[in-house]
């Protein structure tokens, strides 16, 4: 995954969201069965913050990834419904 070439900035930012969110999913499942592992909790806190930040930054630029990022910020269009669905391919 070191030499991925991105077509544009949106693709790169979505890739970062996907990578960070995947780390969060892995740590989430691991912690469910190791709920006293303090090192894993530290990792979780670190990557969860990064993932949330990446989602917020992507959403502000390219449309909301989650309903909690769907504040219209003065825009007169409901982007949550109007940006492409993830199964459309391309940069999704």
């Amino acid at each position, binding site marked *: 995954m070191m030499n991925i070439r991105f077509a544009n900035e949106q693709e790169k930012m*979505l*890739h970062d*969201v*996907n990578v960070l*969110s*995947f780390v969060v*999913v*892995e740590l*989430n*499942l*691991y912690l*469910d*069965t*190791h*709920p006293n592992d303090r090192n894993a909790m530290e990792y979780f806190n670190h990557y969860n913050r990064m993932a949330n930040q990446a989602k917020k930054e992507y959403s502000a630029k390219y*449309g*909301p*990834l*989650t*309903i*909690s990022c769907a504040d219209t910020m003065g825009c007169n269009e409901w982007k*949550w419904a109007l*940006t492409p*669905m*993830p*199964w459309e*391919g*391309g940069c*999704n």
Partner: protein
Amino acid sequence: MWNYEKRLEFPVNITSPNAKLAQVIISQYGGPDGEMGASMRYLSQRYAAPYREVAAILTDVGTEELAHLEMVATIVHQLTKDLSMEEIEASGFANYYVDHTVGIWPQAASGFPFTAAQFQSTGDVITDLMEDMAAEQKARTTYDNILRLIHDQEVCEPIKFLRAREIVHFQRFGEAKLTDLRGF
């Protein structure tokens, strides 16, 4: 409750439609060891889990399976997009097409519809977790079989990701079973 994230867990961008592959891969949507059965199995079993860690892993794996269900549907959707009538007939897709056009419908590769009869929720945490570990192995085998049948890199990459997740889930369910045993 659940929230939707408007992205796939792992990207799917298939540029060459292929209805033959779609008919094989749809088994992981609604087939006997598919993602729909996996998700419904874990999300149904969790109410009878007597340990919080077990209820947690069933909830979170059951949730991740919904993301996998969306990935499999996306693969099938992209493989069946923009097909000509000639391609539909030549690829053996006509039997599916006549009932569903190119809509996504949960069935096995054989055409057998999705059914809850293919999984259990016994109310016994050890029995359920043993079934869950077997289910992850069965799904891994199905993905292995799919990988032997397909060679298009754009399809292989997301399938390889899904296959790897089965192994992680198997590991976590095994650890959850140890949680139970510590209680005795």
